[in-house]
């Protein structure tokens, strides 16, 4: 069923009785060419691109709960490609370009809103680092704009320019950055994949891998054994747990990241704003809530909830740069489990087990990567070679010493 304004009108006139399920609810088949483990944004996008771009026919996505129940359903909805390192920037720029055409591509309005993202600059060394990054972005074909405090004051007069503990000295804009309605990304990819024949199987938890002589032949699930030509794991915060079923240890720790939304407010913030001297970033959703977040709680956790010190720290950062939000009320907080890697960058790679592939380590940057992650993973699954923008996301990079450490924090996952 094609979605359009006309369709909405017609359905409205006939009592909205004609709308069909956005995805089917099929029983799992005994065998698929590709089984994707994890019905989050990345898994669904992988299925979609495998079917659409790489002509694969017989694909299943297995989800232990409901699709989109992981980080694609609990994040701060930001998209951007403001990275520094050659291993990252082309990939994220590829992702941003996919976002730009996504809705027309999968015929679902995910509300991709290129409202801009701003990183505030508070010191000279920070400006130097942002200039280096901005140049890297431009050299990779992305957009970037370095502005001074005077221009910022004209654009965002509500920031604290006069009394801030860490004065605002400028900022790095990426005007093409912005936000996307996060749940709709999962639903749009699910709808697109489903319409291309992909079986999306909810409430189907993978409990083991059938590994035979170093070859992965499929998965065991709560809904029976499923054979697979290729098994593609894509489970974010559950990466370590799931890959342990295949006997693998990963350079990943699972951490909780909290995010927050306020009560609805009339339009206030034009884009995404990131505090450069504290832990705070914020945007305003189409519904009017200020959606914001900050640092991860900092300890290994699978609990999908965090604690007060980080809540306070984030709100302190918010008040430090925009004291107008003091009377906005925090409505809801939530926690997602982040697959924090040892250098802050992800993996899209084959494993040492034939037929078993791994995608993970997205830290808290997975949402914006969704399209490219799906596309590049599909590329790897279909062709057994990495996509040109994802050649460095290898599992053996630490052994080789090829670090992709944007923040320069070293093997300390909670600092990335």
């Amino acid at each position, binding site marked *: 069923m094609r979605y359009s304004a006309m369709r909405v009108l017609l359905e409205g006139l006939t009592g909205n009785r004609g709308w069909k399920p956005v995805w089917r609810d099929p029983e799992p088949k005994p065998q698929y060419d590709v089984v994707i483990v994890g019905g989050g944004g990345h898994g669904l996008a992988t299925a979609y691109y495998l079917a659409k771009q790489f002509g694969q026919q017989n694909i299943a996505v297995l989800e232990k709960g409901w699709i989109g129940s992981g980080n694609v359903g609990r994040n701060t909805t930001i998209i951007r490609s403001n990275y520094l390192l050659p291993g990252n920037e082309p990939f994220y720029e590829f992702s941003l370009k996919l976002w730009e055409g996504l809705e027309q591509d999968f015929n679902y309005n995910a509300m991709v809103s290129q409202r801009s993202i701003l990183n505030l600059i508070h010191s000279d060394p920070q400006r130097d680092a942002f200039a280096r990054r901005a140049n890297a972005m431009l050299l990779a074909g992305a957009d970037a704009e370095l502005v001074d405090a005077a221009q910022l004051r004209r654009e965002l007069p509500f920031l604290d320019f006069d009394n801030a503990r860490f004065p605002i000295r400028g900022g790095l804009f990426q005007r093409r950055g912005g936000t996307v309605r996060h749940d709709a990304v999962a639903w749009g990819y699910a709808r697109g994949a489903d319409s291309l024949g992909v079986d999306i199987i909810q409430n189907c938890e993978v409990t083991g891998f059938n590994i035979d002589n170093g070859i992965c032949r499929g998965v065991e699930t709560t809904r029976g054994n499923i054979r697979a030509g290729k098994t593609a794991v894509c489970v974010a915060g559950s990466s*370590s*747990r799931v890959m342990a079923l295949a006997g693998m240890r990963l350079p990943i*720790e*699972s951490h909780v990241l909290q995010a927050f939304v306020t009560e609805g407010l009339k339009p206030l913030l034009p884009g995404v704003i990131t505090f450069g001297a504290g832990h705070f970033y914020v945007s305003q959703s189409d519904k009017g809530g200020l959606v914001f977040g900050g640092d991860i709680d900092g*300890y*290994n*956790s699978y609990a999908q909830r965090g604690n007060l*010190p980080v809540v306070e720290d984030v709100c302190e950062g918010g008040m430090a740069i925009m004291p107008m939000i003091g009377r906005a009320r925090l409505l809801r907080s939530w926690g997602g489990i982040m697959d924090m890697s040892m250098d802050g960058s992800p993996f899209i790679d084959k494993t040492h087990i034939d037929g078993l592939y791994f995608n993970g380590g997205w830290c808290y940057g997975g949402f914006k990567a969704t399209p490219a992650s799906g596309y590049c993973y599909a590329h790897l699954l279909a062709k057994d070679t990495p996509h040109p923008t994802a050649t460095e996301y290898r599992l053996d990079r630490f052994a080789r010493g090829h670090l992709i450490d944007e923040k320069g924090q070293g*093997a300390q996952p909670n600092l990335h």
Partner: protein
Amino acid sequence: MIINHPLLGPRDAAEFVYLGDASLIDRPDWQDPLAAEKFHDYLYLRDNPVGNHRELWYHEQGDRSWLVVTRNTLTHEIIKVELATDVARKRGRSR
């Protein structure tokens, strides 16, 4: 969270800094023939279980002791707190 410090009693976890898997105590021997591989595993492949996890916390806003805390990563329940120095010695570390 509250960490029941073996010497000081219960303290808010906000006084502490988290490092990670307590296996970071087990730093390999630099002269081991497989030192490169062992250091790689030591630094990069850490335990990340759902359930009980032995992990290092540093009481930075306190007595500056490093602790080994056994904590459930699903419930956050803390099962055991030890001084890391004691643990290190028990694991054969000395000079």
